[in-house]
């Protein structure tokens, strides 16, 4: 569609179609697809036949950081149904041809109107982001129920398209933790659907249940019936009784011919012999081999997950519109910290103290960059442990009169009371260095960067604006 042409009210300009009040962008094969540029359009049309590429494009949109992009209506330009189940769930319908825009327009307009209603508070914690994304997508599609769909490519066997799309295959169980938090916050009610058992190494559910040798875990074994000859108490496999002359079974111990099971012999047990280690046993071990990572799991050590159907509550609906800000209750409880509200009160007093001749005071922050990604890798518990370590490190380097609080789950703010700004700057540089070393030591496999800054308090400053001005650079990241 490189040529401009006019057809009725449809105006086609390269990959852009304007129809009534909506601007459609058509993604085609070989396009250099740049999701960031979609901000100017209202609806995305995908005109690609290859399933994998369609899936790729949909994922790029639905995982985009910008809410206007990840909530964007998506329609597939196709004459047939699309078979990939997750992509079908994440798109808003099928458009047989560009001439049928009327058929999707009401839905597109409805979604657009819903998107307009949604507020987007700045949220830094990973959990909050994920909850917001899920609720936003559901709300804009008037969807009340988040159903788990059985999905072959899912790491845990079930997929919540609006949420799970944000997770890598190996981290999909993280989606369940997010939903658990959302349920605890009263945003969802749940109904039990299924229980899945996953690998205790990678949380994968693609498991091969096998009966294996208890000694070497090999599933290559043979079974033999043990024959007990009553008169002489000989016990051995049936092969022991076979002779080379005829089909009769003769006891190798007393040479009597076996005639009648239950009368002169029986088969009291079965014995397995492992072809790998030659171990003999009667009871197999049942093991679950993870196809994804190869771990041999004892079935009793598999990790169980409850798969539930989630129904959005009124509170969830409200949060979908106004945004979910996790005030990180768990982090607030960390020893040595005060709540943000208390921090602000103390800061007010500190500003008042500046009236004293020669009194100087500062506030600073330590921010763990890319917190959402870090949390995705570390999980909530480790993230909390990381922040706790940082707080303890800070407390040991600050004066006892200094106060520390969490601005959010990845940002710690604190005071340098009665300290010159230059000294505070030096101190925070040292803290940055210490923090980075601590983080590198504690989380070797995760790349974590730290940002710090310190500002001097000024007389007459409003607490709110002081804090916001300090952390403002972070909101642009």
């Amino acid at each position, binding site marked *: 569609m490189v040529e401009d042409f006019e057809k009725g009210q449809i105006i086609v300009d390269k990959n852009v179609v304007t129809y009534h009040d909506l601007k459609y962008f058509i993604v085609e094969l070989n396009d250099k697809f740049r999701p960031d540029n979609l901000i100017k359009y209202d609806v995305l049309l995908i005109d690609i036949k290859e399933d994998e590429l369609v899936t790729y494009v949909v994922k790029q949109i639905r995982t985009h950081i910008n809410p206007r992009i990840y909530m964007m209506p998506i329609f597939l330009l196709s004459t047939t149904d699309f078979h990939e189940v997750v992509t079908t769930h994440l798109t808003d319908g099928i458009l047989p041809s560009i001439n049928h825009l009327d058929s999707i327009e009401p839905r597109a307009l409805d979604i657009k109107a819903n998107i307009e209603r949604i507020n987007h508070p700045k949220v830094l914690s990973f959990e909050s982001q994920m909850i917001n994304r899920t609720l936003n997508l559901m709300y804009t599609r008037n969807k009340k129920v988040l159903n788990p769909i059985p999905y072959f490519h899912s790491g845990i066997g079930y997929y919540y398209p609006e949420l799970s799309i944000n997770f890598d295959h190996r981290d999909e169980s993280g989606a369940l933790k997010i939903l658990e938090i959302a349920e605890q916050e009263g945003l969802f009610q749940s109904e039990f659907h299924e229980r899945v058992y996953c690998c205790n190494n990678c949380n994968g559910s693609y498991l091969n249940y096998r009966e294996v040798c208890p000694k070497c875990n090999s599933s290559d074994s043979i079974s033999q019936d043990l024959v007990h000859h009553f008169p*002489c108490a000989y016990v051995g496999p049936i092969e022991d009784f076979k002779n080379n002359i005829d089909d009769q079974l003769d006891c190798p111990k007393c040479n009597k011919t076996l005639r009648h099971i239950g009368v002169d012999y029986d088969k009291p047990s079965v014995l397995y012999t492992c072809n790998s280690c030659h171990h003999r046993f009667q009871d197999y071990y049942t093991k679950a081999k993870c196809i994804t990572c190869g771990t041999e799991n004892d079935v009793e050590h598999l990790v169980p997950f409850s798969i539930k159907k989630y129904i959005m509550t009124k509170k969830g609906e409200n949060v979908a519109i106004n945004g979910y800000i996790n005030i990180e209750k768990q982090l607030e409880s960390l020893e040595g910290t005060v709540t943000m509200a208390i921090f602000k009160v103390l800061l007010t007093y500190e500003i008042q103290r500046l009236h004293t001749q020669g009194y100087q005071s500062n506030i600073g922050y330590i921010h763990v960059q890319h917190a959402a990604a870090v949390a995705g890798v570390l999980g909530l518990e480790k993230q909390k442990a990381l922040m706790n370590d940082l707080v303890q490190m800070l407390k040991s380097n600050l004066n006892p009169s200094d106060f520390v609080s969490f601005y959010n789950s990845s940002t710690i703010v604190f005071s340098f009371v009665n300290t010159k700004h230059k000294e505070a700057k030096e101190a925070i540089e040292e803290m940055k260095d210490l923090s980075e070393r601590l983080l590198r030591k504690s989380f070797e496999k995760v790349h974590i960067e730290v940002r710090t800054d310190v500002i001097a308090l000024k007389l007459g400053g409003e607490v709110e604006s002081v804090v916001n001005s300090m952390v403002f650079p972070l909101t642009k990241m």
Partner: protein
Amino acid sequence: MDVFGAEIQEFFHYLRSVGFSKLLRVFWFFFFFEFFRYVIVDLISLVFIMWDRKRNRNNYEDAKRRMWLELPLVSIVVPGKNEGKHIYKLTTSLKEQTYKNFELIIVDDGSDDDTEIICKSLKKNGLIDYFIRNEVRGGKASGANTALRIARGKYVVHLDADCSYDFDAIENIIIPFYESPDVGAVGGNVMVRNYKESLATTLQSFEYTDAISIGRMVASYLGIYRVVSGAFGAFRMDILQRVQGWDIGPGLDGDITVKFRKLGYKIKFEDRAVCQTNVPNSFRKLTKQRLRWDKSLIRFRLRKHSDVFFPSQNFSLTNFISFIENITYTLVLNIKWYIYASDMIYNFASVLPFIIVMNFFLYTTTNMFKLLVFNIFRERKNTPFSYFVLYVPLMVFYHGYYLRIVRTIAYIKEFFFKQSYKDPWNPEKTSIKALEIGI
């Protein structure tokens, strides 16, 4: 009191008046058989055993060193039905062993209690190496032979599930194999754990201490030891495979020992390899057990292995003597005792009360002497010998009357009616077939 004193005086007067030759005439059974065999022979043998032990101390230490150097795998096999309740204790006892290179094989012979659940749980926790469950009961021999299919050890130790073992028991029962390459099997020293439980257990404990433990030490020294206890016995795996395991019982432990002896292997008793077991706690249960044991003498010694008495290519003098001694002191003398009793009633009817009292006196004195003197030769004691002193007089009735009567009944039942084939100790299906082919 005066009457009692007068009776005693009369008794001693009788003793003085009869003279030594008359005493021998009246108490020939005691002097010529029992005193000679169970006091004189035992005592002399014990002195030689101790002397030998001192003399060969270096050999023993060398054998022990070689065993530790080789560290052979020992397969411990425990067949049984409804023994689950004992298995944990057994595994605990085995866990304490100084000798660790063993595999524990438990065969559940068609239990109908929780044995399977218990054993599977213990196996899961690593306390049992192999657990084989036979859905239908096949008898002790088939259970042991099933274990033999799995066993990989150089030596096989057969245990009873309700026994526990000294921490060095496995080590001590294996050492004799390194003292001589001709040793095919070693019997452990079975002691009574519940000796205080009842009069029946106390008397059995005395019997085990004296007749069984000392008796087996002597028999082993003389080369006529013939029953490696099923509760604690060790066998060379290659010979067990050669004889194709155990044959059906009752009395399979004595039977397998004879099979080893027939192949020319030495059978040793090791009194330092100690196992403790619970014996029947009532005379009713004890009678049942002894009837079973005593029937096996007729079934195995006189019938199944009667070839030992006749010259053949595999004739062995020690086996012959072993059998003769066994038959003489258990079967023949048992019959002879009745002849003796008839002799006394017929010829000495007037002095019968004196004879009975004298018999009691002679046997009690002998038992007391054995208790005191033989105690010196016992390296390992689980009961203080003082505990038995009060019970010594009762041993006359226990040995002389009770066991003798039980033995007589058993012999009659087996000799004339082949009752051992009807013993529920074995499943009927196996006994019927064994009877058919005469083994």
